[in-house]
Each structure stands twice: as structure tokens, then as C-alpha cells.
């Protein structure tokens, strides 16, 4: 989230000049975000790790053609997305990640755990339609702009905005049901 446009541009410029330090800095800054994104798709940490490594190596190999003014952030996420969806894990495991959490939610003996707001929020977010959840994740947690998300998901900026607005409304309704005080000013 806290990765500024200026930093990314500087690293991308450095990479174009074949500076391995710049590549490593870029890697370090984006690794946690790309890893989480890849893990959501592949549902496997080892595969996610390989996907992110491969994405950065591809970026390094095409460094001469990098345009620091075009979003390198979006390019990285596009690459990770394509690689991740092409892995065996993504093809054999269901994308719908909510089953496990839903089961836990229904078990009354785990009440305190699922009573936590953070756990609840995770369940509600997981229950969003796939595309909406993906757009919301990229926007809320991985720091992408609507325009970048549009590029990554191959949809229009307007559609991205709709996804985010509907996701927030849905979550708002859930929070209101759970504890209306939380929405108070």
C-alpha cells in the first residue's frame, strides 16, 4: 500500500539501466502484495512464491523495453495473474475460497473466534462474487488504482468502480447487522 508512484518510477528507471539493486528494491517492495495475490489464485504458498519469482525475472529480461511512465505496478500484477491462472493448482482447486470459513462460521463452539470483527469481515469479503472480490482486494489491500485494476482484470474503469461500490455496500450492510455502532460517526 505505502509504495509511492515516484519510488516505482525510480526503480523502473534503474531496472532499465540494468541496475540489479533497483530490481531488488522493487522486488522487496512488491513481494508481499504479489505473493498474497498469487496465493489467492493458486491457494498454495509454494506455487505463489514461484509465480512471483517468475514474474520478476520476466520483468528483468524485458527491462530494456520498460516504460517507467506506464504503470509497472499494473504490469507486475498482470504478469502474476496470468502465470498464476496457468498453474496446475489454480486449475484444479476451486477459486471460491470461502467454504472453509463458512463451515467454521456455522460451528457454535468456535463462537469467540468467529465473533471477532476481523474474522467476520474476512468471511463477508470471501462471500462476495469472485470478480467483485478480486477488484476489492486489489483496491483495498494491494494498493492498485481503478485504472490499474481495469488493466489487470481486463475490464473498464467504470466496471471497477461499480465492483468497489457494490462490495463496500454489501460489507456495510453486514456490519450494520452485526453491530450498527461501528458505523456511527
Amino acid at each position, binding site marked *: 500500500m505505502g509504495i509511492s508512484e515516484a519510488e516505482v518510477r525510480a526503480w523502473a528507471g534503474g531496472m532499465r539501466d*540494468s541496475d540489479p539493486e533497483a530490481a531488488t528494491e522493487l*522486488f522487496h517492495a512488491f513481494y508481499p502484495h504479489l505473493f498474497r495475490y498469487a496465493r489467492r489464485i493458486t491457494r498454495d504458498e509454494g506455487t505463489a512464491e514461484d509465480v512471483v519469482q517468475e514474474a520478476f525475472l520476466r520483468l528483468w529480461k524485458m527491462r530494456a523495453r520498460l516504460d517507467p511512465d506506464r504503470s509497472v505496478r499494473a504490469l507486475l500484477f498482470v504478469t502474476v495473474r496470468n502465470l498464476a491462472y496457468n498453474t496446475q493448482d489454480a486449475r484444479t482447486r476451486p477459486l471460491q475460497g470461502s467454504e472453509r470459513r463458512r463451515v467454521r462460521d456455522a460451528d457454535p463452539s468456535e463462537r469467540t473466534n468467529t465473533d471477532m470483527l476481523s474474522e467476520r469481515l474476512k468471511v*463477508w469479503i470471501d462471500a462476495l462474487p469472485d470478480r467483485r472480490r478480486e477488484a476489492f482486494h486489489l483496491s483495498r*489491500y494491494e494498493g492498485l488504482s481503478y485504472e490499474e485494476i481495469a488493466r489487470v482484470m481486463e475490464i473498464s474503469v467504470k466496471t471497477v468502480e461499480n465492483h468497489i461500490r457494490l462490495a463496500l455496500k454489501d460489507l*456495510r450492510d453486514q456490519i450494520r447487522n452485526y453491530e450498527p455502532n461501528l458505523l456511527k460517526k
Partner: protein
Amino acid sequence: MSRLNQESQRDAPQERRDLEKTLAALDEREAEELAKTWDLAAMAADDEPAPERIASARERFTAALAANGRGSETARTDRPRRARRMTSQRRTRLVAAAAAAVGLAVLLVILWPRSTTLTVPPGELADVTLPDGSRATLGAASTLTYRRGPLADARRVRLDGEAYFTIAPDDRSFRVETFNATVTALGTEFNVRAVEESGHPSTRVALVQGSVRVDARLAESVRLRPGEMTEVDAEGRASAPRSVPIEWETAWLGGGFAVVDQPLSAAIEDLARRFGVAIELQAEYLEEDTLAIHLPDARDAETVLADVCSVVGCQYTEKQDGFVVEARP
């Protein structure tokens, strides 16, 4: 709080600017609720990979770069030069240290730093400007110790309790020491809450701007990014960075009270400390129930108790020096 809001708007990351556009098209109440929802959703972020995993992935990537040509060249020519520089540097430092030691012994007597301790009583806040120009807002029932004088390390303080720091930029890092952790910062704003006398002794560090590093006895250094929090437990283990609604973590600055997914017993303890009252929790089975609550205006302990009880399902009675909290029959 208004200071925080202004700053978060100026430095709003791209995704937040986009959100503002979305909200601008809605009516005020809905926009406000959706903004709150956005903030609360911070809690539901997927876990970040562990620091060790990031470190090993980075190593793997550096190795792959080197194997790809170009990268290895620069690394190899650099290394011997750097090593030589370090030895000569060490020698100069040794000589300088020996000479300085003699003069220092004399000077020390005259210039020994004087320690300053600031304690804020329950129910109050205090603003302090530290010797290096950094500012701190000290929370209720909290103590800050620092040293003044020409020899004092102006970039080091000790904290028991809660404080919000706005660090003056400087080449040297700024350190906050607590009973179980050290927070190191460079030009940044962050909140530290260190409570040793508690059923849940811990140091919580939440970062608003810039970057900080947290060191604890049993953990690798944890680096926080804006919006993230880590908690060091009594044994000195630091939790992996976790996203939090930052205005909850700093609610106390504006006179508010917030608890983010904490057991009721910890929340009650917090409340008692803050207002300097005794609160007895006589509802064992409620103690570990987790609670998320945010009151922008916490006038006194009773206002907060009333709200907490309406959420958790408890009732309280006043006694001479505080309150007793029981499960609602």
C-alpha cells in the same frame, strides 16, 4: 484528530483518491458509512508472508539476477573495495576513541545528561517537545523519560504507557524503548502503547506515516508500512505486521476510546488505566470475548462502560472508587 485527517488526505494513496471519487457521487450519510466500512476492512487483510519468507525469496531473486549476467559483475567488483574501506575506517575510529576517552572523563563530570521524566495523570493528555525537536503526545497514565544536556542522546526516549510521536527529520534514527521492545524510526509518525503492568503485557506499535523498525528479544526485526501494526508480547515475540484502521489506534489522541479485536478483560483494564478508576470484572465467561468498539468521544469511564456493556451484554454498578461489571442476568 483533524491534524491526522488533513495529513492522510494530502498523502492519500492512489486507491484512496479513487475511493473519494466514488463516494463523492453518493449522499453524505452513505458516503460516510462506506468510508467507515473501507477503514474497518483494513482488519480483514490476508496475512503477509513471514519476514523469513520474504528474506529468502529476496535472496533467491538476487541469485537469479546474478545468474542472468550483468548483476554479478557489479557485485563482484564492489566487494573488495568495500571491505578495505571498512578496515581503515575501523582503525581511525579506534584511534579517535582512545584520544576522546581521556578528554571525555573530565567532560563527563561537567556535562553529564540530566534525565527528565514526564508523567501524565489518568484522564489527561500532554504535548511535549523533545530536545531534538520531535513532538510527542503522551496519553493518560503514561510516563516518558528522556535526557537533556550536550552529551545526551536526544534521539532516544523510554516509554511506559501510550504516546503518539511526530519525529523531526534527522540523519540519525530515533528510538523509543519500552520494557520489551525497541522502535526505531526515521522521519515518521507512529503510535506506541507499552503496558507492562497488565494481564496482557505488551507493546503495540502502529505506523501512520514513514517507516519504523521494531526489535524485540525473540523476533527478527519487524518493519512496518503505513497503516500496519505489530504487537510484542511479554516474552518478546513480535507479531507479523497486520493492517489496522489507523484512526482507531490513535482514537485516544482526539479524546476517543477504541478497542480493536481485544478480549473484554484487556479493554476493561485499558479503560481503568486511562481514567484511573478501579473496574472489577465479575463475569469470567465474558473475559475472553473479543470486542471491537470505537467511541470518538470518551468523556469518562462510565460513558465507555455503558457502550461496552450494550455491545457485550453486561451491566455495571458504581462503587466508591470505581465500578463492578457483571454479566447481564
